[in-house]
C-alpha cells in the first residue's frame, strides 16, 4: 500500500458526524452588497486610488489615447533607461509608437538572458485583467506575451488598468471573470510594491520585487480629476 492509500484510508476511517452543508459564499457577499450602498464606477475609482495609495502604489489617471505619452513622461521623470515590454502584447504597437527610449522586449525564454533581465532592467510594463477597489489590488494574469517575471524583477512596475475593469471585491472579480472555468498557470493579485516588516516590524519597500508600482488608470476625460 502506498503512503497515499494509507493516508486516504485513515481519513476515510475517521468517524464523520452529520456532513455540513456546502457554504453559500455568494449569498454571504450578496448580503454584504445589499447592506452597503451600491458601488458606482466613481466610488470604485475613488476607493481603488485611496487603497492603492495606502500600499504605496502610485496611481496616475490618464485617458486611453494618452497613456503611451504619459508613460514616456514618467519614464523620463524616473530616469528609466530600459523598459521591459511584451512584444506580442496588445499594447506593444502603441508603446513602440510613443518613442520611449530603451524599450526591451521579453522575447525569449528567461534562461537565455536571466542576468540581463535581473541586472539591467529598470522597469517593466504589463497589462492587468482588472482591479479590486476594496483592497486596492491589481489582477495580473501573466501569459506567453507578458511573462510572469515582468511584474516582479524590474525595480519599477508600470501597470495598465482599465477603470471599466474595477470590481468591488475579490469575490466579485472571480465571479464576473468566471475564474473557476479555468485558471492560467499563474495568476496574481498585486497590492503595491514589494515590502517587508521583518526587521523590528519596520516597513521597508522593495524587499525582493519592485520598489515602485505605478498604475496607469485608464479613465474617461471627465474622470481625470
Amino acid at each position, binding site marked *: 500500500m502506498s503512503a497515499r492509500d494509507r493516508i486516504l484510508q485513515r481519513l476515510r476511517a475517521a468517524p464523520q458526524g452529520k456532513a*455540513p452543508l456546502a457554504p453559500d459564499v455568494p449569498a454571504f457577499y450578496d448580503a454584504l452588497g445589499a447592506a452597503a450602498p451600491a458601488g458606482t464606477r466613481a466610488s470604485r475609482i475613488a476607493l481603488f486610488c485611496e487603497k492603492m495609495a495606502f500600499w504605496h502604489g502610485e496611481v496616475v489617471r490618464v485617458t486611453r489615447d494618452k497613456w503611451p505619452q504619459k508613460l514616456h513622461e514618467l519614464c523620463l521623470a524616473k530616469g528609466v533607461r530600459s523598459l521591459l515590454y511584451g512584444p506580442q502584447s496588445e499594447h506593444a504597437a502603441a508603446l513602440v509608437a510613443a518613442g520611449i527610449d530603451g524599450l526591451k522586449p521579453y522575447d525569449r525564454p528567461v534562461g537565455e538572458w536571466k542576468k540581463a533581465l535581473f541586472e539591467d532592467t529598470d522597469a517593466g510594463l504589463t497589462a492587468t485583467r482588472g482591479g479590486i477597489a476594496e483592497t486596492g489590488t491589481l489582477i495580473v494574469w501573466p501569459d506567453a506575451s507578458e511573462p510572469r517575471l515582468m511584474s516582479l524583477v524590474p525595480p519599477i512596475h508600470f501597470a495598465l488598468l482599465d477603470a471599466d475593469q474595477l470590481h468591488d471585491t475579490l469575490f466579485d472579480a472571480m465571479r464576473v471573470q468566471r475564474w473557476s472555468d479555468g485558471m492560467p498557470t499563474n495568476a496574481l493579485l498585486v497590492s503595491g510594491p514589494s515590502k517587508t516588516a521583518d526587521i523590528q516590524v*519596520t516597513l521597508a519597500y522593495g524587499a525582493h520585487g519592485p520598489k515602485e508600482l505605478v498604475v496607469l488608470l485608464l479613465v474617461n476625460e471627465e474622470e481625470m480629476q
Partner: protein
Amino acid sequence: MNSQPLSFVPASEFKQRAAAAVADDHLRKSFRGAMDFLINKRAAQFPDPAALESQRSLAEHIRKYSLARLPELLEQLEQKLVANGVQVHWAENAEEACAIIVGIARRHSTKLMVKGKSMVSEEVELNHAMADAGIEALESDMGEYIVQLDGEKPSHIIMPAIHKTREQIARLFAEKVPGAAYTDSVDELIGIGRAVLREKFMSAEVGLSGVNFAVAETGTLCLVENEGNGRMCTTVPDVHIAITGIEKVVEKLEHVPPLFGLLTRSATGQAITTYFNMISGPRKPDEKDGPGEMHLVLVDNGRTQAYSDEQMRSTLQCIRCGACMNHCPVYTRIGGHAYGTTYPGPIGEIISPHMLGLAATHVLPTASSLCGACGEVCPVRIPIPELLVRLREEAQHDARPGHAPMVGQGAAKSRLADAIWSGWAAMYTRPALYRAFGWLATRFRALTPPMQGGWTVSRTPMKPARRTLHELMAERE
C-alpha cells in the same frame, strides 16, 4: 553551509527555557512591543464586531466543510493538478517528505534550493535533510533569512525574526554577509538581503514554497506574501516544489476570498498582502518563464491522528495566521523559541502533540492559563482552550473507550496525580468530610505551610480564613 539546529528540544526543558525567557527583560520588551503592535493592527481591521462574527462563521463553515470532505477533495486536487502537469507526492511523515524532496533535487543535480516561507518545511526539518544530502537550502523570506544566518529557528510563524532587534540584525549582517558594511538602517539592511538573494534566485536549480490554500476544483495552489520572494522561488528556478499539510485543501475558488481576507487581517492587520500568487501548473510550451517542472508534496505527519477524533479534528481548521500567539499572554512572556517546537503558542500546543507525540510534548498543553484569548481571536473559531483541556486529559489517561490511542497516549500519567485528584474528588463529593476539612483548616490556619510549591515563588502563602463561608452561613440560621 546554512545548517540549523534541530527544532525540537526536549519538552522536559520547557520550564527551564520559559523561566530563562521571562527573566530576559530585553526579550520580554521586544515581544510585548511587537505583539501589541500586531494586536492593534488586527483590531483596526475589525471595527464592527458583528461583521467580524459573520466572517468568522463563514470561515469556520468553509473549513469544517472542507475537512468533512477531505479525502474526496485531496483526490480531486490531485487529479486536477496532474491534469495541469503537476506531479503530486504523498508523505506520511517528515522522513518521507524530506526523502521525496531530496530525490527530486538530486535528479536535477541541485546545488542550491531557494526557499519561500514554509512552516511545513520547518516542521519536517527539510533544511537538515538537504544539508545531509549536500544541497544548500537557503531561506529567502527576509525574516527566515535572518534567523537562518544566525543558526536559529523562527520564533513566530508569520514574523520569524521578531525576537531580534534592528541592532542585532545589523551586527549579524556585518559579520555573516560577505562584503556587507555595517549599517543599522532598515532600508539598507533589506537592500543587502535583496542583493544577496537575487543572485541566489538566479542560480538556484530548485525553488521550494509552502501553500496557503489548495483549491481542488481548479488544481490551484495559493501563496500569500508581501516580499515577492515566494514569487521568485516559484518562478525563476527550473523546478518548483510546493510542500503542504493535507488539511490545506478547499473545494472551490470561491472559498478562498473569505479565508484569505481573514488570514491577512488576523495575522498582520493587513486588508490584503502585496502578493497573492495562484499557481495552477508549470510553464506551458509557449511561455517564457515559470518552472518547467512542478511538484506538490502532501504531508500527513500526524494530521490524520488529529483528524481521527471529531473534537481534535478542529485543530486542522487552522489557516496559520498566528493571531492566537499574538494574543497569548504566555507566548508574549516567553517568545517562540521557549516552546521548542516548529509551531509555538496556542496553535503549537494543540498541533505539536499530533506531530511529535504526547511523550515529547505533554507539557505544552499545560502552558496555558486557559484565559481564552486565543479562541476569541481565532478567525476559524478553533476552540483552542477546550482542545488544551482535552490534551491534558489524553496525556494523563488511557484512551477513551472506543478511541484509538494517540501517539504517546498517557505519557504524563502519574500515580501521584491520580491519587491527588481521586482524593480531591472523594472529599468534594462528601459534604460532611469537606466541612470537617474546612473546620480543621480554619482552626489550624497558623499551621499553613509557608512554602506552597509554584504558588509561593512570587506570592505569599495562601492562608485559610478564620471561619469558612459554610460556618458563617450556618451561624446565621
